[in-house]
């Protein structure tokens, strides 16, 4: 059950998918599981929907695990899903958010890659789609979005870890989210979770110019990283992708922002400074715990600043 599930251990895709059903069973009036598509290898793309009713309420989209080897993100997604369900009716902020908005959470955003990290190559980052004319497999799903597609920081070489793919939204895993957010039409925030550089980033990545909302995003990011640091002292930097890390074309949150989702952020979760993608499972709960106030800050801000 969701009470006996071990949140401090890493889990396979089957275990995570089974646990989603348990979470739905435990909170039938709040949580449902929807399928938004299928991966390249025909795995289901599941999204947890947290909703207290209403038709197409304003919504917040969260995703983890788009880069499959970033295991701390899927694990944080599981913990966060449980936290949202548990806190509704208990925590005033979570309750206020869910009384007016829906939250969608895709925990295993790149299921083929994730399954591959468990079976064959723990350090696999990309999708598993075949590339015509190349021996190399997979596309970087965080370079595959139609926002500065093919630009700086992405590669046209299928053997590269940052291969952008043959065309924007070529990856089913990406296309499914694009179609879902377009069809929904009322998504107000997209938060895409990665690891392990300890950053809170916002658009743009494909251009250096600030967005019209730069100042507001910057102030919100500053508050969020400060509240995150208050938990265990983990220090995050923040700013636009292009000015904080590097120019990167075709990223999730640039696409979201360019498609009308103002509050688009990406998190780079923690590393202890020693492990990178191999963060020990003992750090799952601390990582998720410190991330929670930052997520909550963004979600509350979205609730309080309708547009």
């Amino acid at each position, binding site marked *: 059950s969701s009470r006996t599930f*071990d949140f401090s251990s890493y889990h396979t895709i089957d275990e995570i998918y089974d646990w989603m059903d348990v979470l739905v069973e435990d909170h039938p009036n709040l949580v449902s599981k929807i399928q938004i598509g299928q991966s390249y290898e025909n795995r289901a793309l599941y999204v947890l929907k947290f909703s207290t009713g209403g038709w197409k309420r304003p919504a917040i989209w969260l995703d983890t695990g788009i880069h499959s080897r970033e295991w701390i993100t899927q694990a944080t997604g599981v913990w966060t899903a449980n936290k949202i369900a548990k806190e509704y009716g208990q925590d005033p902020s979570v309750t206020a958010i869910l009384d007016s908005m829906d939250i969608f959470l895709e925990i295993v955003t790149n299921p083929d890659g994730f399954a591959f990290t468990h*079976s064959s190559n723990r350090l696999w980052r990309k999708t598993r789609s075949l590339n015509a004319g190349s021996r190399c497999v997979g596309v970087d799903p965080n370079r595959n979005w139609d926002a500065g597609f093919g630009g700086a920081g992405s590669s046209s070489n299928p053997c590269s*870890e940052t291969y952008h793919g043959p065309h924007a939204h070529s990856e089913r895993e990406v296309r499914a989210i694009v179609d879902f957010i377009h069809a929904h039409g009322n998504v107000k925030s997209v938060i895409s979770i990665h690891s392990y550089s300890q950053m809170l980033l916002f658009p743009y990545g494909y251009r250096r110019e600030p967005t019209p909302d730069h100042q507001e995003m910057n102030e919100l990011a500053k508050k969020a990283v400060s509240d995150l640091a208050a938990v265990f002292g983990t220090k995050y930097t923040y700013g636009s992708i292009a000015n904080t*890390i*590097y120019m990167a074309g075709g990223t999730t949150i640039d696409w979201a922002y360019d498609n009308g989702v103002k509050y688009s952020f990406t998190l780079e979760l923690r590393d202890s400074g020693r*492990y*990178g*993608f191999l963060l*020990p*499972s003992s750090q799952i709960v601390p990582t998720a715990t410190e991330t929670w106030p930052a997520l909550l800050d963004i979600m509350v801000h979205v609730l309080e600043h309708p547009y």
Partner: protein
Amino acid sequence: EQLFVGDQVLRVTARKEEQIALLRVLGEQEELQVDFWRHPNSPGHPVDLRVPFLNLHGVKKFLESHNFSYSIMIEDVQELLDEEKESMRRSRRVKR
């Protein structure tokens, strides 16, 4: 199953733009099979790269010949992977 016995992750600090460019050149040399965990972007930011055991000597020589400062972040990737696998196995056993 791909094994990573003896592979190391190096943490490199580039001090200037020219060194960033050199790291990118390193990444483009396919035969070295360098896997950037943190990509080179701006001077002062740490860059992490996993280097297969067979190419460690060549990569370290490259870094030293261009005066990079670096440290070994992970001594043996496979050792960590084995620990991770064991931890998952233990967790499942406890659950049962």
